[in-house]
């Protein structure tokens, strides 16, 4: 039970190290790096490799942005399994709704509560 905390820390840290290498060595902008990681997550799920990583590392795999690509693909595949090709389109946001809806909601709440102070 306690080993999941260690693997979460290590796997989550390592995915961030990949991001840092893309920043510093490949000289990509943060936006390009995040897009690349999202695409990588969705391809890994297509190959069936991301779910085992979640079982192994828990939040270490679900919190990095790669899991966003993974859950988009996962929702699309789950619906496609039920409804065929049209499910690819309709199922996409089924799993990952919480990330986007909470980002929109909390973003709006934050805009109401907080005052802009320079570059937040």
């Amino acid at each position, binding site marked *: 039970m306690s080993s999941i905390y260690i693997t979460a820390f290590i796997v989550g840290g390592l995915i961030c190290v990949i991001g840092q290498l893309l920043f510093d060595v490949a000289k990509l902008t943060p936006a390009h*790096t995040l897009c690349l990681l999202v695409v990588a997550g969705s391809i890994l799920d297509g190959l069936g490799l991301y779910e085992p990583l979640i079982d192994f590392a828990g939040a270490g795999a679900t919190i990095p942005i790669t899991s966003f690509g993974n859950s988009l693909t996962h*929702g699309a*595949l789950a619906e496609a399994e039920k409804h065929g090709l049209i499910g690819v389109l309709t199922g*996409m946001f089924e799993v990952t709704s919480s990330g986007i809806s909470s980002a929109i909601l909390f973003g709006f709440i934050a805009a109401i509560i907080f005052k802009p102070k320079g*570059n937040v």
Partner: protein
Amino acid sequence: MDEKKYAKLEQEISPKIPLMKNILKAFLTGGIICLVAQFVALFYMTYFDFTERTASNPTVATMIFFSMLLTGFGLYKKIGQFGGAGSAVPITGFGNAVISAAIEHKSEGYVLGVGSNMFKLAGSVILFGVFSAFVVALIKTILVKLGVVSW
């Protein structure tokens, strides 16, 4: 000055990136954020009716809530300066991009400012996530229909 000379000169003049230090900081920051999230997931599994797999949804929402507080009080920027990719890659970085854009454009009004600019930075992540998910899922669905692979 030709291109080669310029590239060499650029390399000499630009400050050396402390690569190992940056990697270590990113590892620590990203690892700690994921560790906190793992404890949040434990909370949802213990006190609510969530399994290990379904707990990730409320965990993501909670982490973005933390990100809202840290961004609003100007602390996430400081974490970002220390952690680099360690603070940008976790979902809290995605939340920070949305939330900071929302706060920053408040003065232009809620519709034209907050609403239109919220996804200024995060939009590209959503675009490429959706597009790649579409392509991957399409390819896999076709391959399954053809009997090459199974679900």
